[in-house]
């Protein structure tokens, strides 16, 4: 079936099997490989993207379900080479190591701040409950998100 949607501001289309997961449509058919797959149970959030501005796990949707939506992936976050403030915060706070969970974390974190622009540390931690990282122990991820929210004094770090 033909599946069309807007991805990072561009109209995209591909002919795929109905069972095609959105994450595979994005990665394998559109070639946008920044969105990663870390599990098969909607647990890890490595595949997190935005659909119509809200975070979603693209491994738990069919591409068909996203027909006609406005999708943003990690490739759509930086603006002409200038990092998105959340990406910048992750860099400045060392919020990534191997980088595999990072695109999903950034997408989840930007969605979180859209809904709660000034979160506490506890709210950031709860807000990222669906995104797993094995490298950072989350300390610097939480710090990054608080920093991006302009709330770095709550970072809990010295």
């Amino acid at each position: 079936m033909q599946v069309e949607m807007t991805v990072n501001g561009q109209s995209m289309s591909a002919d795929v099997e109905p069972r095609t997961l959105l994450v595979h449509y994005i990665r394998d058919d559109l070639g946008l490989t920044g969105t990663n797959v870390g599990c098969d149970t909607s647990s890890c959030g490595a595949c997190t993207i935005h659909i119509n501005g809200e975070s979603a796990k693209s491994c738990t949707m069919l591409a068909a379900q996203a027909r006609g939506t406005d999708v943003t992936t990690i490739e759509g976050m930086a603006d002409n080479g200038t990092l998105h403030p959340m990406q910048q915060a992750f860099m400045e706070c060392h919020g990534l190591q191997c980088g595999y969970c990072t695109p999903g974390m950034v997408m989840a974190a930007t969605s979180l701040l859209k809904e709660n622009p000034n979160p506490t540390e506890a709210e950031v931690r709860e807000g990222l409950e669906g995104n797993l990282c094995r490298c950072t122990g989350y300390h610097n991820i939480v710090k990054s998100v608080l920093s991006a929210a302009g709330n770095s004094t709550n970072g809990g770090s010295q």
Partner: protein
Amino acid sequence: MIPAPVDYVEAESADAAIAALTQHGDEAKLLAGGHSLIPLMKFRLATPTVLVDIGRLGDLSYINDGGDHIAIGALTTHRALETSALLQADAPIMAHVASQVGDPSVRHRGTLGGSLAHGDPASDLPAALLASGGSVVAKGPNGERVIPASELFTGFLETALAADELMTEVRIPKATGAGWSYQKFNRRAQDWAIVGAAAVASGNGDGTRVALVNMGPTPMLSSAVGSALSGGASAADAAALAAEGTSPPEDLNGDAEYRSHLARVLVKRALDEAGS
């Protein structure tokens, strides 16, 4: 993990969805947010041959004041429930419990109707529906019927919905100002409850309804606790009965003894918080 091949039909209306279900029978599955069905399909534990996508039926996504109840469209997302001022005022347990489902990304896509129709005993929202004394509206080829929550969950992952019926609306009696509580116990925030307890104190002297999560094959009301409370028992005495009539599962998170204990602890906490 990849779903098995499947055909896909997008329903333009509730009636079209029902027609598609009628046409394909047991081979068809309704697809709303997909957050219950697609994980099963990826492990090939569910292998429908046709998916009937109702996810775009915008007219089934609403939260309205229905007079003595709040009427919620079946395709309303958890996120919409969580942030609804109407629910927060008149059926606050529904808004709160929605905020406890999965994680934010899941709540953006998952729907109330999907969660209830899946009938998972470990899910949060069925317990909230039961404790609220709510009901659902099912629409089929022969029209609509209302199914009380207490009759909705019939077996493990089974509900009273017929194969050709579509849940269109969920009705939650207003509980404005009434005490309520949801106690969810799990090891990770994103996980299903090991055990959960929902309590809603009825505003009209009906007593307090207590529902249990993951204490048997279906989401369940605790009739033992409810009866004890109606009979004037203290919260502590009523909570001590929380495991009665249950058949808790055994898994890596706990055996039946532990789950029974948790049920008593959580029901006590819920009753205390609900002011019962």
